């Protein structure tokens, strides 16, 4: 074969090793990049700061005497450093990101622009309330939309993320029980085995004992199992609905009734709300409190692990105990209630008023979709998941048969038994095909779980290619091509990383004592 300069070409695998190894370690656009502590220098700065001039410091005896040891980069160096780092990340904007339970949908850029309007991005949380009426209007409007979509009486806006919202809801429940004089008696929170880890961690964080409830063979919780676990010592049941197996809990209404009959409260983990927005109002099912992950359902960007926002919708029974601050509408003005004194509020979750930047993005998302688009988005999310489920059902095994799923399709590893390929191997091979792996080994109630959530953002063509790629991988498993899996990924910026070594000998920061590898030394590897 000749290229268009008339030079013979052959596959890279066929050429000598010295051609395949580069001096720099880069491979064309795939750049190696050192740490800022290796490439930066303390005397370099990328920010011009005015000289302070002469003055008499007022620091007492507390002026810094120790060096800080912070490297600096000029602006061009910094741009290059971070752009190179960015290119080692997978992202929604690059491809399908089917992480079950995480709802990796498209992040509209309009929302970014709106959050950066000076009237939202450049206002201080403690400015006089008269100078931030538009901000309070936005929070109040968002709260209205959230209560309308959930059927709630009130919403606590300040929680910073999903788990923080869980804590908020459970603290409201605890406060309500204290007010009833049952705080000391009700010490147990029921959590199904399939729950997210945050649920039991939250219950324990605020002092509850956790009692697990088993799931049925079909992945759902039965009213009998809930009833058997309920008693006068139970404060609340925490249930995810749709659950972590991607199924709507069919007995949720009866479970809620049983919980209330036993004098307890019903907390719903709203991580999977994206399946049912505009289709079901959670409060109609008997829910007392539910957090909403604005960074999942309402598309505020995940940002490599946050920030999120976790407003909590509350039933009329719990609304009085909501944390401060909250907004009060007085005629045509908005006022802030910032202190719990004189109210039944359980107190404060965080400094200031919550994740305003996320509120603006979520509001922009909601206005863009409207009531009609929000419902369509949920339907498309569920349709996409079921399409994947059906198109893979003959090559992969589903733990609960051919029941329709909600917005995520769950597979187990029975189909991999005896092949020498594990769920982890299969997931890593997906990386070579240009996909982020699905959620693995969760929920814990399913062996070798693979939880696929495509979201509504995928076109049919995108789904078809994904399905064909997974089918190709599955056929490869059947044909015994285990190397495609056991060594995967082959094409990512790094091959499989040694997590055991990281945990056994933790290196959690850069230190000078560490030998600094020269550029060509890194390259030589």
């Amino acid at each position: 074969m000749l290229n268009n300069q008339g030079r013979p070409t052959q596959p890279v695998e066929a050429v000598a090793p010295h051609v395949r190894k580069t001096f720099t370690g880069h491979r064309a656009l795939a750049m190696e990049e050192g740490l800022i502590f290796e490439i930066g220098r303390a005397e370099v700065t990328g920010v011009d700061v005015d000289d302070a001039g002469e003055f008499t410091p007022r620091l007492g005896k507390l002026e810094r005497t120790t060096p800080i040891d912070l490297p600096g980069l000029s602006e061009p160096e910094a741009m290059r450093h971070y752009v190179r780092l960015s290119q080692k990340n997978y992202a929604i904007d690059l491809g399908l990101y089917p992480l079950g339970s995480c709802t990796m949908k498209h992040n509209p850029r309009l929302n970014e622009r709106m959050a950066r309007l000076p009237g939202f991005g450049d206002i201080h949380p403690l400015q006089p309330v008269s100078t931030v009426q538009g901000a309070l209007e936005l929070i109040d409007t968002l709260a209205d939309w959230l209560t309308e979509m959930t059927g709630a009486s009130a919403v606590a806006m300040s929680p910073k993320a999903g788990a923080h919202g869980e804590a908020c809801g459970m603290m409201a429940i605890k406060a309500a029980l204290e007010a009833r004089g049952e705080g000391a008696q009700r010490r147990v929170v029921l959590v199904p085995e399939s729950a997210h880890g945050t649920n039991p961690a939250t219950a324990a964080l605020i002092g509850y004992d956790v009692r697990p409830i088993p799931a049925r063979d079909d992945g759902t919780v039965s009213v009998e199992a809930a009833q058997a676990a309920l008693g006068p010592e139970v404060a609340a049941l925490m249930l995810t609905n749709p659950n972590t197996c991607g199924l709507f809990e069919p007995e949720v209404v009866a479970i809620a009734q049983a919980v209330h009959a036993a004098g307890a409260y019903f907390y719903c983990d709203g991580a999977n709300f994206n399946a049912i927005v505009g289709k079901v109002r959670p409060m109609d099912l008997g829910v007392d409190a539910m957090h909403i992950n604005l960074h999942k359902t309402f598309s505020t960007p995940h940002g490599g692990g946050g920030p999120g926002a976790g407003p909590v919708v509350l039933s009329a029974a719990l609304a009085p105990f909501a944390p401060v601050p909250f907004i009060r509408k007085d005629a045509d003005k908005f006022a802030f209630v910032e202190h719990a004194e004189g109210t039944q509020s359980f107190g404060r979750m965080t400094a200031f008023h919550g994740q305003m930047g996320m509120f603006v993005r979520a509001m922009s998302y909601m206005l863009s979709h409207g009531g009609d688009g929000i419902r369509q988005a949920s339907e498309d999310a569920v349709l996409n998941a079921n399409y994947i489920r059906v198109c893979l059902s003959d090559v992969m095994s589903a733990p609960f048969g051919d029941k329709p799923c909600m917005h995520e399709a769950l597979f187990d590893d029975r189909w991999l038994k005896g092949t020498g390929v594990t769920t982890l191997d299969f997931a890593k091979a997906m990386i070579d095909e240009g996909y982020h792996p699905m959620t693995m080994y969760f929920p814990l109630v399913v062996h070798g779980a693979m939880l696929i959530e495509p979201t509504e953002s995928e076109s049919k063509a995108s789904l078809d290619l994904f399905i064909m790629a997974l089918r190709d991988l599955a056929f490869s498993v059947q044909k015994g091509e285990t190397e495609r899996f056991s060594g995967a990924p082959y094409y990512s910026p790094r091959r499989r990383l040694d997590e055991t070594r990281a945990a056994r000998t933790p290196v959690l920061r850069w230190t000078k004592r560490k030998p600094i590898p020269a550029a060509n030394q890194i390259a030589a590897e």
Partner: protein
Amino acid sequence: MRYLPLTPDDRADMLARIGAENIDALFAAVPADKLLQAPPDLPRHKSEMEVERMLSRMAARNVSAGSVPFFVGAGAYKHHVPASVDHLIQRSEFLTSYTPYQPEISQGTLQMLFEFQTQVANLTGMEVANASMYDGSTGCGEAALMAHRITRRRKAVLSGGLHPHYADVVRSLSQMTGDNVVSMPADARANEDLLSQIDDSVSCVIVQSPDVFGNLRDLKPIADACHAKGALLIAVFTEVVSLGLIEPPGAMGADIVVGEGQSIGNGLIFGGPYVGLFATKQKYLRQMPGRIAGETVDAEGKRGWVLTLSTREQHIRREKATSNICTNSGLCALAFSIHMTLLGETGLRRLARLNHANAVKLADALTAAGVEVVNDTFFNEFTVRVKGDATALVERMAAQGVLGGVPASRLSPNAGVDDLLIIASTEVNTDEDRAALVAALKQ
């Protein structure tokens, strides 16, 4: 709808392939009487232009910090953030990626977190730092719980200089768990007697420096007193720029350091999202909440990074986890780290010095104008005593187009601090801004 790629034909084809008669067949598990028959009672979808118009109208009702002489602080600060920071954090690969659970395709985020952790540890003078908390206040609440786990005691002593919102967060959590909290009264002059509160039952003392009134606190004697009784010192800061000029808490004996990182890289955004900084000593590492990135090698021996020590965390340990935190402040940590990298040691020290100089200039001008400055020491924020009610004064100044500070009573309503005003001055203030504030306060 511009965000939904499926066409009606696609939907019909896919339903046929699934073997479902219509979309509601896929919702068959929902009790029939709970399935809504129509979209919720909300406006229909809107174009970009319409959304922009609506939200811009709301935004225009707010007075932005950059549009007026601005001196509001008390836990969040107006600083200049370089343009490149906001550009870089909006790169798709940072903005639209998830928590780095798949390290092979998340090395960008993981390396950045490793750099961030090192920057935070170096700034605070501590041995290890995590990959961020939601903000300073929630980090403070977590630090108290961590101290309780380490000491197996359940009593926290809160300085009267601790930001009242931070104190509220600690109290709300403690009220749930039945832990004890001793709150010292609001202490504008930094002359409280914390040492006499420290006995064998105390788990931790929480002290902020610069405190909420702006005073710098010498942490060394408090740390010594804590350690003599087996208690831990939790040091808090809300203005991270101060660490460029004042002795870091680690050098004064703090056991856990928590702070707000908003000032570097992040805007005011009406209170969030911000970024909580959390650092401690190596020996307490296993009790630290939150994610941690660590160094390792890949299958070819190349250096790389992973999330590590996750046996502390909720997704592994469930009810035995050190915290329930999952999502943190990744992108805000990135903004912090980029801005800090641009500054470097030289830039940060200059910036801190300029902040301090501006505050000193303002304090001197106010003193000259007959306004009482309460503090002996401060960094870029101090407290003045005004005639009458500070809240009314702030409203009056706002009407004149000056955002002149935070009335202490807004944070602590019944603490006898109605005549105290907390004023912050950073590098963004000009001589004209200062003159406007002095004039407004003199009236």
